């Protein structure tokens, strides 16, 4: 017998930040159930606070950032989610105790450089790869 058509709930559209806009202007971004979605957060490593400025010439510290937030279904393309992360989130919905959600991690990293004196007063310049988070996503 034809059942009365169930009214489909309106499709929820997650207004998520576009990955190419640095989060920080989307501070109040929340997913559907009011949780923070996966995004980049500010984190400043201060050489001044660490007390190193008498031998580190430059910089005074650097913005390292970090990734934090929920990777809850639906993982829109805005969350830089890999296909595997989307699949894992689906399986998590079916077996939440067996399979965890995808996790929020850096998808793009860049280097930072430090100029300092060594014990012979020579000046050294070191470049360190993968020390600054440029973008986050669900993996």
């Amino acid at each position, binding site marked *: 017998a034809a059942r009365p058509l169930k009214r489909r709930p309106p499709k929820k559209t997650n207004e998520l930040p576009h990955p190419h806009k640095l989060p920080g202007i989307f501070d109040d971004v929340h997913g559907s159930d009011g949780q923070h979605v996966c995004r980049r957060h*500010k984190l400043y490593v201060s050489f001044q606070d660490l007390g190193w400025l008498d031998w580190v010439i430059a910089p005074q510290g650097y913005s390292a950032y970090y990734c934090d937030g929920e990777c809850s279904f639906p993982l829109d393309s805005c969350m830089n989610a890999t296909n595997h992360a989307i699949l894992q989130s689906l399986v998590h919905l079916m077996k939440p105790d067996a399979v965890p959600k995808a996790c929020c991690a850096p998808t793009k990293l860049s280097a930072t450089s430090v100029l300092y004196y060594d014990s012979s007063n020579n000046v050294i310049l070191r470049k360190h790869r993968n020390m600054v988070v440029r973008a986050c996503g669900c993996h």
Partner: protein
Amino acid sequence: GGGPGPRPPRGCLQRRLGPRERRDMQREILAVLGLPGRPRPRAPPAAARLPASAPLFMLDLYHAMAGDGDEDGGPPTRSLGRADLVMSFVNMVEHNQALGHQELHWKEFRFDLTQIPVGEEVTAAEFRIYKLPSTHLLNRTLHISMFEVVREQSNRESDLFFLDLQTLRAEDEGWLVLDVTAASDHWSLNPNKDLGLRLYVETEDGRSVDPGLAGLLGRQAPRSKQPFMVTFFRVGPSPVRAPR
């Protein structure tokens, strides 16, 4: 600093680190950054002294490497390209030599290379010396040649290894950059041996000239114009850090 910090997991008591734990954390951050840890400077803290030639040059490199160097149209030296470690060497001993009967002059610089990290690939090495306009050799063309002192001999002239030759005018002024990359092959063979660099100046007709008369400044120059050496390294893949 920065935005709202990470929310502590439920039930996790946040507490302040004790001084010892704080020092351990700092040591951890130093290790991640590959910094050697606070040096015990021999001289008064270098930062308190007048800006010297090497730190000034290295600060330009820092801005170029950190990507801030746009305003000056790119890195101050082509060697910066692939390097991820740059060392400047200022501690050197300088000899001014003249062999009277042959009227042969040279300047010799000795560098302590014990700080060179063993096993890193040298991509380039430069010797930088400042030249003032010469008031003794007007309108002359000068040939500046640089050799590495490979081995000193007691009964005869030292064994020398040719490194670079630059030609300039006696009235020229500025930093003269001599390429000493070829000498780095010997560093890895004798890591703890000082590096000896010898500099000659000749006129077009082959006459040896005292480098000081040609306007080349040595250790007696003002700090911002003293000679120094810069070495560019490509650091191998960082060794997997043992969990601490």
